């Protein structure tokens, strides 16, 4: 099996790690809630890609568990995005702002 290329896991895993790192960076650096949400989606997609890659290049034979997990991740990511967007709409309707720094009424 080649070390790198379409028939080796390395490339897929590298892309997944890169996606995950980008998502983490977006999630912790963005002040806008939509930006954080995009970061979370990137992290979830990185995980799905990783599952699919590990399933395809499993040690013995291709393992269906990884592909199954990836499909589940896609479905749950959609559900999570729907709930999160509904919540952000609720915040926006009340305060006209979804900036995390501006919505800070709750404190000790």
């Amino acid at each position, binding site marked *: 099996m080649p070390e790198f290329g379409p028939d080796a896991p390395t490339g897929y*895993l590298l892309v*997944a790690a890169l996606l*995950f790192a980008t*998502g*983490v960076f977006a*999630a912790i650096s963005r002040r806008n*809630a939509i930006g*954080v*949400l995009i*970061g*979370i989606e990137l*992290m*979830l997609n*990185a*995980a799905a890609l*990783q*599952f699919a*890659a*590990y*399933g395809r290049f*499993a*040690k*013995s034979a291709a*393992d269906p*568990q*990884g592909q*199954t*997990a990836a499909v*589940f*991740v896609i479905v*749950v990511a959609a*559900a*999570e995005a729907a*709930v*999160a967007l*509904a*919540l*952000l709409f*609720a*915040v926006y309707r*009340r*305060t006209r702002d*979804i900036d*995390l720094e501006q*919505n*800070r*009424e*709750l404190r*000790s």
Partner: protein
Amino acid sequence: MTLPAPLAALPAPELALCVGLGAILLADLVPALVARRVAPWLGLAACAAAGVCLAVAPGDGAGMFAVDAIGRLARGLILALLALQLLAAAGDRRPARDVGVLAAALVALALGAGVTAAASHALPLWLGLELVALSSYALVACGGGDRRAAEAGMKFVLFGGVASAAMLFGLGHLYGATGSLDFASIGSGLAAASAAAVAPALLLAAAGIAYKLALVPLHGYAPDVYQGAPPLAVAAVSTLPKVAAAAALVRALQFVVPPAVAAPAALAAGLALVAATSLLFASFTALVQRCARRILAFSGIGHGAAVVLAAACAPQRAAVAAIAFYLLAYTAANTGALVCLALLERGPRGSDLAALAGSGRRRPWVAALLCLFVASLAGVPPLAGFLGKWGVLRLAFADLGAPALLAAAFAFVAATAIAAWSYLLIVRAVLFAGDSGPTDPREAAPLPVPLPTAVVLLLCAAATCGLGLWLDGFTAFAAVGP
């Protein structure tokens, strides 16, 4: 009778909750049923059916779920808590159209918690945690709450999304390193893998559970959610996910570490360090809070950390009984305290200590019960909370050869002593502080407490006072089975 394959993949108790959830959602489409507020009672029926299923045939759902002591106890506790929450929802005075949403979210929360508590496979574990998270967001933000509830929901969903995605990425790495998503195969695969390669993956996977237990440094959302969300939502969100996450933690540890032997020193020390940090941080931070619900939030962080301390102790078999009892005592007292607070609060910032001042005069019985629940949380003997703490301490002091566990046990004692002061702040505000609220004659004679709510309070109080009498019986009950 054999079920078709897709249904057989779910254990019978969770299947019963699924049916109940469907019934609630369908009943929500019929205006006559909505007006009669049937949703909580439908949920209670499903809860009872699930309880019977759990006692008779828990089921292993095509091998993805474990039938073991911690799973049985945690799911039983989850169903009991769901019944309490549904009763409280039935007694709530919110508009009839919101009751269906509330009941549906509660049943979905319990369903996710049950799946999480029973899972012995990474996929149902993550799916259960996600269902818990999504229904928690709905409970916090959609219960007819105000701007603060929406803000709490937004912080909750963003924090939770990051924690969940990080956990999933860690699980993916574990799958790559061990070739399986099944806990048993992951456990045997981990024994062969190098520690340095899998440690980051394990840490990421543990983050999801630590988030549900609100352990430092993943606790950030808890105080805001407690303060901003509707009180009944807080009572659900602060108990059910903790029970589920504690069960998942214990099960995961059992597969990584064989149940009969002590945890490896490094693992136990890591868990003890996390527990001690959270305990001390929570107890000190609670002292400077000016809101009763935020004090309860930091109390919840401390109680979650105590469970981790118990899980770090060996042997696992004894830890299961101690953890189950601790969770039972904590959830009963916490649910009772939050329901009491809901009855005492008035106005938009009603849970502030200043706003609660003298509220005990309006509802003396509720205030007395609140003091009872808070005393149990603080660990005043002979209440259930004290016995729970005692059980955890006995485990931690059982093995005097592990310095990390010993240090964490001393941190637990110190944190309990410090936290007692913050609980006293609540008692002082409710009982002794002068009444600063408006002297409206309608306010002076509040509405009577609804019957279902009174039943909830009495059940919580009975558990808080009476569990001590049944401690031996409970330990024997917890020890039965695999």
